[in-house]
C-alpha cells in the first residue's frame, strides 16, 4: 500500500512537471512568438536588425503599446474601450487647433505655450474618458456600446474642429512662443526616440500599479467577480472610472505623438487603432472576460503586432497577405488563450502545490 502510494506520488510529480511546462509555454507564448518573429525577419531582411530600424520599430511599437497598456486595465475589469482611436484623433486635432489657431478672448488671439497645449489637450481627452467611465460605471451601459458611442462622438468632434481639414505646420512660431511641440514625436534621448521613452514610462507606472498597489488588486478582483469585489468593499464604479480615464490618457498621448511626428493634425488619424490595441492585449494573454492578464503581456503583444507589421512591409509581403496573416495570428492567439484556460482547469489536480500565481 505504501509503495503504491509512493508510485502514485512520483507519477503525479512527473505529470505535475510536464503540466507546468505546458502551462509555462502557453503563458510565455507571446514572448515565444515575438522571439520567433525577430529571428525570422532578421534572417529574411538584412536591414531588419540594424540600429536604425530598431529605433524606427520602437517608435511604431510605442503607439500600439501605449494604447494596449491603457486598454489592459479596462479589459482586466471585464470592460473594453473602443474609443481610443477616436480619442487619439481628437487629441491631435485639439493640439493642432491650439498651436495653429490659438485661443481668442477679448478680441485678441493668444497662442498658449506647448506645455499648456499638451495640458489642455489631455484635459479634453480625459473628459471623453470620464464620459466613458460614467456611462459604464454609473449609467450601467455595456462597455462595448458606451465606448462605441464615444468612438463616434470623439471622431465627429475631431472632424468638427477643422471642418474635416488638416492643421498643417505644427512646428509653432518663435514669435508666438509656441515652438517645441514636435519634440514629443521626433525628439531623441540617448539615441532612443521620444515615443519609446513615453511608452517605457507609461509601462513602468502601469506595471507598478497593476502588480504592487491595492488599486491593481481591485482591478483584478472586479474582473474576477464584480459582485464579490463589491461585497468585499471595493468601490467598483470608482475603479472602473479610473481605468477608462487612464485609457483615454494613454490615447491622448498617442494622438500628440502622431501629430508631432507628422507635423500635422488630420481628423481621420487613429482609425481602427482600437482594434490593434485590443489585439495586442489579447495576444499578451489578457482574457477579454476580465480578471486574468498582465501589462507586461500587453507590451509584448504590442511588440508582436509592431514587429509583424514592419517586418512584413520590409519583406515586401503583399498588403492583402499582411491582413490575412495578422488575422490568423490574432485568431490563433485567442484560440490558444481558450486552450490555456481549459488546460489550466484540467491540469489543476496535477499541480502538486497550489500555485497562487496560476492566474498569471
Amino acid at each position, binding site marked *: 500500500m505504501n509503495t503504491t502510494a509512493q508510485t502514485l506520488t512520483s507519477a503525479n510529480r512527473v505529470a505535475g512537471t510536464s503540466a507546468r511546462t505546458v502551462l509555462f509555454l502557453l503563458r510565455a507564448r507571446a514572448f515565444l512568438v515575438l522571439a520567433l518573429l525577430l*529571428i525570422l525577419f532578421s*534572417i*529574411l531582411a538584412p536591414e531588419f536588425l540594424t540600429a*536604425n530600424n530598431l529605433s524606427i520599430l520602437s517608435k511604431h511599437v510605442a503607439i500600439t503599446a501605449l494604447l494596449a497598456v491603457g486598454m489592459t486595465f479596462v479589459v482586466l475589469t471585464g470592460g473594453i474601450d473602443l474609443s481610443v482611436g477616436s480619442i487619439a484623433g481628437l487629441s491631435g486635432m485639439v493640439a493642432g487647433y491650439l498651436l495653429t489657431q490659438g485661443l481668442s478672448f477679448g478680441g485678441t488671439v493668444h497662442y498658449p505655450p506647448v506645455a499648456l497645449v499638451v495640458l489642455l489637450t489631455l484635459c479634453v481627452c480625459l473628459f471623453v474618458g470620464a464620459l466613458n467611465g460614467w456611462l459604464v460605471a454609473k449609467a450601467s451601459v455595456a462597455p462595448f456600446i458606451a465606448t462605441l458611442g464615444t468612438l463616434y462622438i470623439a471622431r465627429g468632434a475631431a472632424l468638427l474642429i477643422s471642418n474635416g481639414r*488638416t492643421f498643417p505646420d505644427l512646428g509653432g512660431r518663435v514669435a508666438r512662443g509656441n515652438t517645441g511641440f514636435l519634440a514629443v514625436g521626433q525628439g531623441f534621448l540617448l539615441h532612443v526616440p521620444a515615443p519609446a521613452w513615453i511608452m517605457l514610462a507609461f509601462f513602468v507606472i502601469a506595471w507598478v500599479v497593476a502588480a504592487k498597489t491595492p488599486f491593481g488588486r481591485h482591478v483584478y478582483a472586479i474582473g474576477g467577480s464584480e459582485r464579490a469585489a463589491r461585497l468585499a468593499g471595493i468601490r467598483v464604479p470608482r475603479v472602473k472610472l479610473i481605468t477608462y480615464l487612464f485609457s483615454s490618457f494613454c490615447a491622448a498621448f498617442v494622438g500628440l505623438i502622431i501629430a508631432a511626428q507628422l507635423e500635422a493634425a488630420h481628423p481621420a488619424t487613429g482609425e481602427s487603432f482600437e482594434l490593434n490595441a485590443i489585439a495586442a492585449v489579447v495576444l499578451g494573454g489578457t482574457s477579454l472576460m476580465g480578471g486574468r492578464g498582465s501589462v507586461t503581456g500587453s507590451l509584448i503583444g504590442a511588440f508582436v503586432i509592431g514587429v509583424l507589421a514592419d517586418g512584413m512591409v*520590409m519583406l515586401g509581403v503583399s498588403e492583402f497577405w499582411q491582413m490575412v496573416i495578422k488575422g490568423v495570428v490574432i485568431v490563433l492567439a485567442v484560440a490558444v488563450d481558450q486552450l490555456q484556460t481549459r488546460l489550466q482547469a484540467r491540469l489543476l489536480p496535477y499541480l502538486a502545490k497550489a500555485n497562487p500565481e496560476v492566474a498569471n
Partner: protein
Amino acid sequence: MPRRVIALFVMTATIVCAVVGCHRADHRKKLIAIIVPSQDNPYFKAEADAASARAQQLGYRVRVDAHGDDAYVQDNLIDAAIASNAAALILDNAGADSSIAAVRRATRAGIAVFLIDRAINDDGIAKAQIISDNGQGARLVAAEFARALHETGDYAELLGRESDTNAQIRTEGFHAVLDKDPGLKMVAAQSANWSQSEAFEKTEIILQAHPNIAGIIAGNDTMALGAVAAVKSSGLKHIVITGFDGSPDAIEAIRKDDLQATALQPAVLISRLAVDEANTFLTTGSTGKPERQIIPCDLVTAANAADYSNFEKVR
C-alpha cells in the same frame, strides 16, 4: 523546464533557418519603394503596376505598399523604406499637408522622392511632383457636358470628398465653364465622398426632388457610375452623365452609351515618367526637369473610347 524551453526554441529556430535560408532576396539591386493609396482601386493599381513594371525593367528591386489615405500609415511605410535603404521612393501621398514631414524625413535620409498624382504643399523637398492637370481635365469634361445638354437645362453636381484638393480643383474647373452658360442651371450639389454607393443614394434623392434634371456632372468615375445606376433604376432616360479619371469601368459605360464622357488621367504615363526620372536622377544626380510637372488629361467620349485602356492611351 527551462532546458526544455531552450531546446524547443533552438529547434524551431533551426527549422525556420532551414526553410527560409534559400529565400534571401537579391539585395545587390537598388530598391525603389512605391507607395500608393490602395491596391484594390483600379486607378491606384494601374499606377502602382506601371511604376513597378518600369522599375523592374530598369533593373531595380521593387516594393509596393498602400497607405489607405492614412497619413500615419504612410509615415510608417516611409520609415520602412528608410530602414530598407531604398534609393528612390515613388509616392502617391496621403495628404498635401500631412505628408510634408514624412517626405522631408525620407529626403534627409538620402532617398530621392518622386511624387505622383497628388502634390504636397511645399517645394524643394521632393525631386519631382508629377500630377495630371485636374483643372484642364475638368474644363474639358464640362465643355463636353454642356455640348451634350445643348447648353440648356437643369443639372446636378456630385462632388468628391470636401477635404481633398482635387475635389476642389475639379469643381472649380466645372464651374469655370458651366457658369458662363446662362441656359444651364445647377439645382443640386452634393458630396458623395468619391463613393459609388453614396453617389447612388444621393442621386436617388436628387432625382426625387428634381425629376426633370437633364444632366449630372460627377467629380470622379465611381460617383458617375453610381449616378448611372440610380438613373437606370429610376427608369428616367436621356440624362447626360459625365465622370472623371478614365477608369476601365467608365470607358466600358461610355461604349454602352450609359456615360457621356470622362477625363482620363494619364496615371500610367505619370508613373513611368516618375520612374524614368528617378533612374536619371540616380545615375546622373539630376532629373533635368522642373520639380512641378503637370500632364494634361484626355477627354474620352464614345468617339475615341476604343483608344484607351487601363489609364493609358493604347492607340
